[in-house]
C-alpha cells in the first residue's frame, strides 16, 4: 500500500468504517482508534509483502476484533475522556438516537451482523467468514436483528415487498 493508495483508502473508506464500528461499539472514539489501529496493521503487512485482497473488509474485521477487548475499550475511553470534556458533544439527531438505542438493545453478535450487512454491505457468506461462524448462524442472527430493529424503529414493509422478501428467504 503506497501513499496514494493509503490516502485514497482513508478518503473513500475510513468514514464508513468508523461509522460501522461505532454503531457496534456505541462509542465513536474507540471506533476511530480501532479502525486506525487496523489500518496501521494493514499498512505494516503490505510493507512486509503480504497481500490483502479486500482491504476494507480486512480492516473492518480487525477493527471489530480489536474493539471486542474490554480492556482496550476502557483504555480508549480513559484516553478519550479529556477530549470529550474539552469538546462539547454535538447532540445527535433524533433518528441517530433511535438507531443507536435499537442497536444497543441487540446482543453484540446480532449488532455486528446487522452493521456488517446494512452498513458495510457484506454478504452472508462474507459475514460468516469474518465472524468465523456458519452462514446458518449468520442468517439466524440477522433475522433476529432485523426483526428487532424493525419493531424498535417501527419500520413497515410494503406487503408485496414482504412477500418477495419471505420468498427470497
Amino acid at each position: 500500500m503506497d501513499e496514494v493508495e493509503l490516502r485514497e483508502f482513508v478518503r473513500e473508506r475510513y468514514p464508513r468504517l468508523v461509522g460501522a464500528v461505532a454503531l457496534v461499539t456505541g462509542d465513536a472514539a474507540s471506533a476511530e482508534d480501532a479502525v486506525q489501529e487496523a489500518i496501521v496493521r494493514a499498512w505494516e503487512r503490505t510493507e512486509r509483502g503480504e497481500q490483502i485482497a479486500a482491504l476494507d473488509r480486512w480492516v473492518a474485521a480487525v477493527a471489530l476484533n480489536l474493539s471486542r477487548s474490554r480492556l482496550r475499550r476502557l483504555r480508549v475511553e480513559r484516553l478519550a475522556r479529556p477530549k470529550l470534556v474539552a469538546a462539547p458533544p454535538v447532540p445527535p439527531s433524533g433518528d441517530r438516537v433511535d438507531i443507536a438505542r435499537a442497536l444497543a438493545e441487540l446482543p453484540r453478535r446480532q449488532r455486528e451482523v446487522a452493521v456488517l450487512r446494512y452498513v458495510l454491505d457484506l454478504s452472508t457468506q462474507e459475514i460468516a467468514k469474518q465472524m468465523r461462524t456458519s452462514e446458518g448462524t449468520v442468517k439466524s442472527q440477522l433475522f433476529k436483528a432485523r426483526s428487532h430493529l424493525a419493531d424498535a424503529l417501527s419500520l413497515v414493509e410494503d406487503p408485496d415487498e414482504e412477500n418477495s422478501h419471505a420468498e427470497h428467504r
Partner: protein
Amino acid sequence: MPSIDDQLRTRMREAAPQPAGADDLVEHLGARKRRRAGVRRAGTVGLVVVVLVATTGAFVALGRAFRTEPIPGTIPTPSQTPPDLGLGFPICDVMSMPITVAGTLGNAYVFTKATDGCPKPGEGHRFVGADLDGNGTVDATAPELTDCFSPVGCEAFAAPDVNGDGTSEIAVSTAGADGYGVWLYAVTTSPAAVEPVKVELPPGFKGFIHAGPLQFAWVDVVGHFGGAHCVTFDDGSTGFVIDSGDKLGSTAEVSSEVFTLEGSIMRALDAGTRTLPLSDLPLPGTTLCGAPLYGSASNFPNAAPDPKTVDIGLDAPLCDVSTLKADFDGDGKQDTAWVGSFAKNGRCSTGDTSDAIVAVDLDGDGLADGSYDTLPRCLLCRTYAATDLNADGASELVVLLQASSTPEYAIYGASSVTGSDSPGMSPMLVSAGNAENGFPDGSQLTFSAGGDEGYSSAVQCEGYPNAPVLVLWRSEHPVEGPGADVTDFYETKLQLVSGSFAVVDARHFTQPTSDPSPFGLTSQACGVDWFSLA
C-alpha cells in the same frame, strides 16, 4: 415503500457517527505506525526505526528475529571459550573480525560482560572493542552498545575502510524484523580509541540522516530497501553513501546522502532523490564497501531460520506453534498435533491475527501427514485439549480458535475417524443439525464458552467416557431496554457418530434474566476444562 432492509440500510448509514476531519490522518497514521514500531522495539522483538523521511513511505522498520547463535561467516565469530582480551573482567558471547589499522592487522571484538554467567543475546552489557596491533588484547573500547535487540543481540557486522585512509572502521549491527540497523565506529591509534561515528550536517542541510550518532539500515524487502556503499570522488578520495528507497512497481524512488568521514565525524556533502529502475538499485548485499559481512548478516538477505519456528515438513516452517500429543488414530501410539501459522520468508511476525493451520503427525516421523486445515484470522489459536468424544479409543483434538472473554473452540479428528479422503486432521462437521440453535447441517462445529455483555455460553457433557454427548449452552438477551428482562436459552446436544456431530436433542426456552442460569461459564466436561485460559 422501500423494503425493511433498504430502510435499515439507509437509516443506519445516516446514523453512523462520522469521524472528525481526516485532513492529516495519513500523517497521524504514520506517526502511529512509528509508535507501534517503538513499542515493539521496547519489547523482546527487535525492531529499529532507522530512517525517517517526511513522507509516508519513509519508514524503515528493522527488526528480525534470527536464531541466537550467529551463522559462521567468512571468518568466524563466536568463540566457545572466551579469550583473555586483557579487559580485567570476564566476557562472553564474543564475536571477532579482522581489521586493518594503518597497515597492521588487528581485530575488532563485540562482546558481553559476563555477570553470573552469560546473559541471553540482547541482554546484559555489550561492548565493541579493538585490538589495534593483533597482540590478543583489547586496546580500546567504545561506550556500551545499546538497543541490542533480542534474540540476536548486537553483532560484529563488517570492517570496511569507508574513507580510504588505510584503517578500518568497525560496523556493528543489531538484527530486526526486516534487516539490520548498523552503527559505525572509528578507530584511532594515538591515543588508542574506538569512537562512535557521528553525523554533522551543514546549516540548512536537508537529508534523511539526522545529526548525531550514525545509524543506517541494511534491509532489502518487498517494497523497500536501505543500505550504504562507498564511492570514489574525482580527486581520488572516498565518500560514503547511504541509500534508502521505496520500490514502486518497476521503479524505485531512491534517496541518497553522500558523506565524507574525517576522524569520527561523518560530514554530509550532498543529498538527493532520483527514480531508478529496480535493476539499477544500490541494494545492500553481503559486503559493505568491499568488506565482507559477518555473523547472521553473512547470508543477507537470506535470513537464518527464525528461532521461534518449527519445521514440520510443510512449505514453510510454523510460527506460534502449540503442540499436543495424544493418540488421535487409536493405534495405541502417541501422535502429535500442531497449530501454528506459516512463517513469512522464514520469519515470524508479531502480535497480529493471522491464518493458522492444524496439522498432525500420525506415523511418528516428526513431519505433518497429508493435508492440513486452515484457520482464518486466528487470534492466539492453539491446540487446547485431546479427548475421546465417541469412545472409540482415538482422541479428538480440541482447537482454541480465539482466546478472549468468549473463547471459541473447534473439534478436529484424524482422517481415519472422520472418513476424510485426505490423511491428516479434519474439522468435525455437524450432521442432522438444528439451525435455530445455531448448528445448521454441514457447518463446521464451533462453539464457545464464557460470555460478554448480553450473551454467554458453556460446554457440558453427558455419558462420558462410555457414550459421550456434548451439551452446548448459549444464552442471549438485550443488554438494556425492551426485552432485557427475558433471556433466551439454547441447549443443544450433539453426539459424534460416523465422523460428524449429529444433533440428538435441542431446545430453546426463555426465562427471566434475573433467574439463575442453568449453566456456569466454566466447566469440566468430556474430559476437558472449558473456558480455562490459564
